[in-house]
């Protein structure tokens, strides 16, 4: 039986103390160096490009039903935001539930992506206007809020614009709530060590946190409940968005695994996002002493499992459609996989499945820092191409053809693809929008790191209490406290 004293070791034999953790992480929040400014400037340029692309598109094409095909890549980018930053907080939630100690260096980084939820809501607003209109009351006029395509129930209240908007806003709010609840102890520590407006703001935001036992218990319970809500909301959002903005826009496409596959892609891409983030934190961010091999090694196993599941879900979809030889299903398979969007599909398949699978089956790759990071980057890229091959063809179906019974009915010349199903290549404004989206995710995250510590102070210090190294038989092994 050993006493956990102020000095112990974490990860790879690095000396950390609770006091040292607080001082160092506080310094990281308040100090702004040249590299950070350069990153902000670079990302700011991307965001400005994105805004320009959006404005040009909005002015040139508008948001009418006729303009919907022009916004396919914008919708794909929304899907990308959802599956990466929107799903990232799940890493903190899930590994807190399973009580994995290796989650500690990455939990706050994962929660910080909840700030990008605000971008999700803003990005989503134009998409509501792009949903196809149906003249419900028969007055010959399409009015926003009165006439919309309904899937869930009859009437405007039941329309997707209400369900989807509520879900996206709810997800953003829940994510911010989790971030706030988790960060309250750290806010107090930062406010005590800082000066200026940030210290005053953090002091106010902490809402009088004193660190009593009752407050800690309440915090744990809140994180558990909010985490459960976030997870359920996330699955709900994935289901609604993927069905309303992709599946339902292609006549005759009925695919029960579509929404679960979309949700799983979210979990996979979120894992990739977090792996890339902690890699950058370790190599460029100055957090090497906090982020050892363990998070990469353990998270890579999770990513391998999610990648295999992704391949399994894809195969279930493909096999059922391909084997059945139903004309509609065959047309859909050709549309999103083997003809119109073949390039996007191949890139999706390679980056989301083949590359991470081939890499992560090797223990030597999993048990490294760079290997899981590359696999993570690969799945993020793959997720983008998946969004392209799902949303772009869906948005390209003209309004007049939405009422068709099935895509198999679209007329085509012999041996040719129907006009409605031809691939849509991105133009320069689509490129600006995509670049702007990626830049905005990174910019918001970086700005968040100057408000809250990118690594959770209280969780790191808690880990110092629970993790010791002790001689055992002939070696020296980690002893992991399991208070639960």
């Amino acid at each position, binding site marked *: *039986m*050993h*006493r*956990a004293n102020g000095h112990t070791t974490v990860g790879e034999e690095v000396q950390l103390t609770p006091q040292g953790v607080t001082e160092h992480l506080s310094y990281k929040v308040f100090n702004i160096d040249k590299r950070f400014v350069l990153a902000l400037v670079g990302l700011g340029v991307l965001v400005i490009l994105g805004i320009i692309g959006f404005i040009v598109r909005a002015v040139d094409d508008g948001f009418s039903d006729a303009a919907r095909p022009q916004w396919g890549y914008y919708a794909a980018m929304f899907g990308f935001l959802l599956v990466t930053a929107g799903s990232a907080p799940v890493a903190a939630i899930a590994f807190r539930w399973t009580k994995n100690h290796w989650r500690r260096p990455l939990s706050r980084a994962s929660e910080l992506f909840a700030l990008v939820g605000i971008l999700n809501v803003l990005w989503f607003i134009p998409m509501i206007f792009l949903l196809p209109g149906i003249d419900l009351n028969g007055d010959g006029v399409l009015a926003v809020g009165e006439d919309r395509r309904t899937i869930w129930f009859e009437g405007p209240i039941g329309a997707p614009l209400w369900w989807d908007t509520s879900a996206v806003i709810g997800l953003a709010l829940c994510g911010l709530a989790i971030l706030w609840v988790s960060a309250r102890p750290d806010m107090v520590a930062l406010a005590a060590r800082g000066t200026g407006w940030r210290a005053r703001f953090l002091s106010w935001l902490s809402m009088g946190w004193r660190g009593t036992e009752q407050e800690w218990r309440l915090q744990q319970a809140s994180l558990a409940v909010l985490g459960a809500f976030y997870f359920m909301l996330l*699955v709900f959002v994935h*289901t609604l968005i993927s069905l309303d903005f992709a599946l339902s826009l292609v006549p005759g496409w*009925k*695919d*029960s*695994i*579509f*929404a*679960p596959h979309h949700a799983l892609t979210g979990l996979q891409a979120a894992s990739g996002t977090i792996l890339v983030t902690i890699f950058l934190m370790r190599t460029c961010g100055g957090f090497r002493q906090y982020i050892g091999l363990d998070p990469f090694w353990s998270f890579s*196993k999770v990513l391998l499992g999610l990648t*295999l599941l992704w391949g*399994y*879900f894809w195969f*279930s*979809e493909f*096999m*059922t*459609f391909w*084997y*059945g*030889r*139903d004309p509609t299903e065959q047309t859909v398979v050709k549309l999103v996989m083997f003809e119109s969007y073949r390039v996007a599909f191949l890139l999706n398949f390679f980056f989301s499945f083949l590359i991470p699978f081939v890499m992560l089956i090797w223990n030597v790759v999993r048990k490294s820092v760079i290997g899981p990071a590359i696999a993570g980057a690969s799945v993020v890229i793959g997720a983008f191409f998946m969004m392209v091959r799902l949303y772009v063809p869906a948005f390209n179906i003209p309004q007049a053809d939405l009422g068709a019974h099935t895509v198999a009915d679209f007329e085509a010349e012999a041996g040719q693809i129907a006009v409605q199903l031809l691939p849509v290549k991105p133009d320069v404004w689509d490129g600006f929008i995509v670049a702007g989206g990626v830049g905005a995710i990174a910019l918001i995250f970086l700005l968040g790191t100057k408000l809250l510590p990118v690594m959770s102070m209280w969780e790191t210090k808690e880990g110092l*209490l*629970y993790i*010791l190294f*002790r001689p*055992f038989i002939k070696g020296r*092994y*980690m*002893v*992991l*406290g*399991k*208070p*639960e």
Partner: protein
Amino acid sequence: MQEGKPLTDREINRGLLNILFENPLWYWGLVGLLAVVVLGAMSAAGYMINHGLGVTGLNRPVMWGFFITNFVFWIGISHAGVMLSAILRLSKAEWRRPATRAAEVLTVFSLMTAMLMPLIHTGRAWRIFYWVFPYDWARGIYPNIRSALVWDPSAVFTYLTSSILFVYIALLPDLAVIRDRSTGLRRQIYSILCLGWKGNPRQWKLQVIAGILLSALILPVFVSVHSIVSFDFSMAVSVKSWHSTIFPPYFVIGAVHSGVAAVVIVMALMRFLFGWHDYIRPEHFDALGRLLIVVATGWFFFFVMEFIFGLYGLEGDEIGMKDFLTAKPPWNWWFITFVGTTYFIPVSMWLFKGVRRNPWLMLVACVSVNIGMWLERFLIIVPGLAQKQTFNFVWGTYAPSPVEVVIIIGTFALVSMLMLLFAKVFPLIPLYDVKEGEILRSEIQIGRKKVPAVIRDE
């Protein structure tokens, strides 16, 4: 995860090998009773072979009934082994230790039982050889490898083979312990079975590596088996409500749900029958209960997806099917029972820690799950076939005959009897695993509190 008093090797050997070396009366009484039920089922099967499939309730258009439902059910139960043994072994969950072998053995016996079902279902079981092998080279009649029904035995046999291997590799150290405590013919048999196990470092290293490799290799088999069983249904375009892309993961997660629940039942009974209170503790039921909440909720999501997509296409016959299931008695009562017993009743029980830590209440909840999961398979198969489809010309209904009911009950008795017989010959809780858990057990002092800890050997 450190409740219970520390145990010495001697106590572990004595405690876990008690049933092998003792002959309590209740044991043989129970085995005898189960054997009678199994004989009854065999008689019913013999009666059916003699008189033909007409003695069952099967008839056009419901060609699949209780037998195929039971087949899918037992395949589902078999997924417990890999879930608890392989996945928890790879993730180093300490609470897996008393559950792994029981889960693996349940896998083997439930797979064997499942494979009996299609054999019995053929009516003339000997003709299975004509189906497997080409019987007339001149006419070129070969098994149709494009049929999901041909993929099924390949998958199930692969899973059975790998599961048997998995059980056997993990048994080797324990067989050596029993060998060392036996005499005469018994000692000779165990000596042969343990393949010369001496327990030196090299053998332990190979055994651990083999366990990890088998765990990793059996995982894709575990997913593929029930996916291929689901292909028996989802590949069929002709039956409404079957052709759905979500069937493979829906079936797999349903299998995990029923399988883990079955393992909880087995563990509760083991604790009661064999007196293993020191080894199967409330903390294990607590951990399994929390796992079951997650699995059950995942299953429920897939169930909802499958249900609403039946309505999504606004196709008349699919809506008619769902209406039949939810509004027409007695099917609506079966449907309500199925959803209640599979999800709402057990999950609302598992939300309470007091329930999760109570072996008897966990037994009740998990029996409820398995009743519901059996009903789920029944409600997928029979109502779909009973509706008029593209390639048949009649509506029909189905009522099981006493022959089918007896055979189904017989399968439950068979698996139970085989588990009991296994427990008489091999320990159902791995000795070396429990001993390893004791060695890796530790404590940390944090302030004034002693916190249980575990030594990580990596």
